[in-house]
């Protein structure tokens, strides 16, 4: 009797296991198909990206840019005198305008100091820029340190 019940139980388990394995297998197949599809998609996308990058490389070719710049822009190659580093910049100018003041331009004119700033782009022998009114310039506003040639 016991044996018979056991037999039925085993048969039942077998059927269940078979069904379960079938389901797993089926799902795996679906997943594999999905994966293959995605892989293919990724490959296609990569190919497209590669094509676009190649195209970008063509468009970004310095020879082409130079040609276009010559035709359409009035730019000149940068001269060595036009470079300046950050440490050679003069100090931040004093605040001309208090926040909330009613007459910002007037305030600016009032506080106008005339610092004579020489940057590296001006050769050292060159005359300093003309100061509009030397009388109002306080003596403290001495010319900023020349930045170049000092090292």
């Amino acid at each position, binding site marked *: 009797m016991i044996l018979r019940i056991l037999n039925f139980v085993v048969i039942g388990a077998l059927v269940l296991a078979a069904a379960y394995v079938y389901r797993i297998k089926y799902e795996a197949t679906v997943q594999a198909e999905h994966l293959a599809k995605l892989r293919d998609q990724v490959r296609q996308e990569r*190919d497209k990206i*590669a094509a676009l*990058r190649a195209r970008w490389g063509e468009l970004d*070719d*310095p*020879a082409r840019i*130079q040609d276009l710049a010559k035709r359409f822009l009035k730019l000149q190659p940068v001269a*060595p005198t036009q*470079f300046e580093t950050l440490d050679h910049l003069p100090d931040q100018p004093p605040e001309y305008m208090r926040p909330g003041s009613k007459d910002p331009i007037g305030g600016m004119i009032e506080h106008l100091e005339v610092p004579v700033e020489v940057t590296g782009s001006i050769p050292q022998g060159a005359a300093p820029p003309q100061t509009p009114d030397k009388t109002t310039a306080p003596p403290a506003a001495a010319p900023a340190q020349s930045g170049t*040639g000092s090292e």
Partner: protein
Amino acid sequence: MSAIAEPIAEPIAEPLPVEPAEPWLRRFKRVMLYGRNVDRGAKARARVGLAIIGFVVVYGIIALRLVLFGIVSESRTPQRIIVDDAVATARPDILDRNGEILATDVRVPSLYAEPRRIIDVDEAVELLTAALPDLDPSELRTRLSSKRGFVWLKRDITPEQQKEIYRQGLPGIGFLKENKRDYPNGPEVSHLIGHVNIDNQGIAGIEKWLDGHGLAALHMAGLATDRLQNPVVLAADLRVQHALRDELVQARDHFHAIAAAGVVLNVNTGEIVAMVSEPDYDPNDPRQAIEPSRINRLTTGVYEMGSTFKAFTVAMALDSGKITLNSSFDARMPLRMGRFLIHDFEPEHRFLSVPEIFYYSSNIGAARIALSLGTGAQQAFLKKMGQLDRLRTELPESAEPILPRRWSDLTTATIAFGHGLSVAPLQAVMGVAAIMNGGYLIPPTFLKRTPEEAEQLRKRVISQRTSLMMRYLMRLNVEKGTARKADVPGYYIGGKTGTADKVVGGRYSKTKVLTDFMAIMPADHPRYLLLIMLDEPKATPETHGFTTSGWNAVPTGAKVVARIAPLLGIEPRMDLPPADQLILASLKESR
């Protein structure tokens, strides 16, 4: 009672095991079929056992097969897709040092036919030639009429053409997507990266080097089919490369030279930041590369470098310790060596100090320096500087230097000013870089290299002090000497010019010259070395009839420096003191 009971009990106590009587018919059958004394029960059990074993074996095999199918089928399918689709194998991208694409793979459709499946050859030929006018109809006909299973009709067609042919609906005609190498910058980087053949195998330049370094093996194994490979990053900077090439093309046209070449080398790491050899070719159309005029003159050609070699002579002299910057040599008269006379181009007719020999570019002086040190010292020094052996870089193309057959005193004297020894220009660049960078010989490379890696590879060849003195001389040459036109303000360039008479028919030509210019920037702490080389430049009105380096290679070099220095991150510094103060002073401090 008992006696009575006895006989009664008798029949009961006689339960003799009486076989139930077998029906006679059944007994008859049994005897007839199995024999008289066979135990049927045992036999049946054995049979059942046999059947069980049989079933277990059969089901076992079935189960095993199922498992095998389950494993194998999955791994097989995707592989087949790739093999079908990628005939020409994939290559890694090549990028410049800033990540700009120099070479990449694009997928292009290619047209093929399966002639056995074509029904109407005439119709197919007609329609295909309509879509692709450059196909030859008769050749197409013979191909389609063949009995082969597969023929290529045209590699690399446009998507529009593909669409058109697809719409024609011809049986037996199909497309495969293939990897095709694309060089978006065309001729800009041609000699540097080389090119590939139709099956995407590298046949020149870095492309060939890639194949030699594992890629070919991957191809053989059929693994290099997808673009999952790391890109190769070169040392080259596309912007610098373009600026150099642009100026060289202009110079070549302007001076009507047969060829122009240039290199920009990072002297501290040995990285080749730009390399141009004009005329070059478009790697997208590799047929041009076969023309002999388009060789890479910097690695494949060997040249007598002319006066730039005086840098080696003077460096050797200063490094030996026997000659100082204050030594002077007799340059009053042309130097007679047997039946040869060594002249100066612009004779000074007096004793010249070592710096004067360098910046007046005195052949007599250089020859006397070399002779005073001897042939052996010169050979040993040039060997140490890598000028006597073939220079090997990543590029497969390289040339052996042409050494004099007999290294006589005359040879020593001529080699001192750059005649009689032909080297690949890149080799000379490597040597001069070693003189400039503090005395370390670093093998040049086309791949990106960090300063630490360079430190591992470098080899000290001259002392730091000699290097410092040479920097001074190079700068002095720009301030006072033959390279005055190279003084771009702000970059503190130093340089040495060279003009070599070309050998035509075994004799030095009077008119045909090769001019070169080696520039370092900045001269006080060199970072980059620039070589400009012009092959047979002609005199123009501006050069007043001169064809020497100072009139053509030097101005070209100046233009190149002005363009590339900002790209290389060299900060312009205005109003620097002359070399006497800036470089020579630091030399005295270091003493």
